[in-house]
C-alpha cells in the first residue's frame, strides 16, 4: 500500500489532510457563489414577471426534472457509501459504488439531453432564438433563457464530476487509498454532492409552481 506523500510545509499527514479539506470547502463555497449570481438573476426576473414565470414553469417538463432529482439523490447516497466502504477497508465495494454513481450521472445527462430535445422542438430556446408560440410572453422568454444557462452550467458540472469520479475509480483500482488515508476520495465525492445540492435548488425553481 503506497503511503501518501507529505508536503514539506506540513508537520504530519493529519495536518495535511485538514488543510486539503479546508481548501476543498472554500472551493465548494466559491462554486456556490458562481451559481448564486444566476439565482439572483432568476429572483430578479421572477419578481418582475411573476405570472409569466409561473405559466412557463407549469409548461415545463416536470417528469424529466423530477426523474433527474431522484437519480441525483440516489447517486449522492452511492458516492457517500463509497467513502463509507473505504473507511471499512472494502475497496472493491468502493469501486462498485463509484461505478454505480457514474452510471447514474450518465443517466442524468441522457435524461437532460432528451429534455433539451423537447425544448428545441417546442422552440423554447434562449434569448432571441425563442419562438414557442404557446407562450409568447417576454417573461417566458426570460425564464427559458435562464433555464438554459442554469441547467447548462449544471450539466457542465455534472460532466466534470463524472470525470472526477472516473479518475477516483482508477486511483482506487491502483490501491492509492487506504482505511487511514483517503482524503482524495473524500474530496472528489464532495464535488459530486455539490452537483446534487445545486440540482436540489434548481428543481423547485424551474419545475415546481
Amino acid at each position, binding site marked *: 500500500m503506497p503511503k501518501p506523500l507529505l508536503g514539506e510545509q506540513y508537520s504530519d499527514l493529519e495536518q495535511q489532510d485538514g488543510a486539503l*479539506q*479546508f481548501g476543498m470547502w472554500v472551493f465548494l*463555497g466559491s462554486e456556490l457563489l458562481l451559481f448564486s449570481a444566476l439565482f*439572483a438573476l432568476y429572483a430578479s426576473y421572477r419578481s418582475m414577471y411573476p405570472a409569466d414565470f409561473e405559466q412557463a414553469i407549469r409548461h415545463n417538463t416536470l417528469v424529466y426534472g423530477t426523474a433527474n432529482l431522484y437519480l441525483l439523490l440516489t447517486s449522492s447516497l452511492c458516492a457517500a457509501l463509497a467513502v463509507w466502504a473505504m473507511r471499512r477497508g472494502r475497496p472493491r465495494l468502493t469501486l462498485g459504488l463509484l461505478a454505480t454513481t457514474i452510471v447514474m450521472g450518465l443517466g442524468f445527462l441522457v435524461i437532460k439531453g432528451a429534455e433539451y430535445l423537447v425544448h428545441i422542438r417546442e422552440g423554447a430556446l434562449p434569448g432571441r432564438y425563442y419562438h414557442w408560440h404557446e407562450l409568447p410572453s*417576454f417573461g417566458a*422568454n426570460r425564464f427559458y433563457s435562464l433555464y438554459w444557462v442554469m441547467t447548462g452550467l449544471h450539466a457542465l458540472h455534472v460532466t466534470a464530476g463524472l470525470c472526477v469520479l472516473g479518475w477516483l475509480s482508477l486511483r482506487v483500482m491502483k490501491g492509492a487509498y487506504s482505511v487511514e488515508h483517503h482524503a482524495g476520495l473524500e474530496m472528489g465525492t464532495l464535488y459530486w454532492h455539490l452537483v446534487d445540492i445545486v440540482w436540489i435548488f434548481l428543481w423547485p425553481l424551474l419545475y415546481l409552481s
Partner: protein
Amino acid sequence: MSTPRPTPLSSYLIVYAVLIILATMSLGYSLLHLPGGLVVSLVVASVKAMAVLWIFMHLREQRISSALAMLLAVLWIALLGGIMVTDVVTRRTFPERPRPTGEDGFYQR
C-alpha cells in the same frame, strides 16, 4: 480537538429516506397548487441541502473552519441575492415606464 465518530451506515440510509420523502412531499404540494408553493419548496430544498451537507458530505466530522467556509458562502449568497432583488423591486423611473415587453426592439423575431 476530539474527532467525532465516523458516520454509521444507518445514518446514510435514514438521510436518503428523508431526502426521498421530502422530495415527494414537495412534488405533491406543487401538484396540488397549494398557496405559498415557492416558499415551501425552497424551505424543503434548504432542509435537504443541509442533510446532504451534514451527513453525506461529513460536515459533522469536520473542523469548524470547514463549516465556516460554507456558512460564509451562504451569507454572501443571501447578501448578493437580497440586495439585487431589493434593487429590482424598488427601482422607479421618472416618468414611470412599464416593464420591457420585448416589443421595444430588445427582443424580436
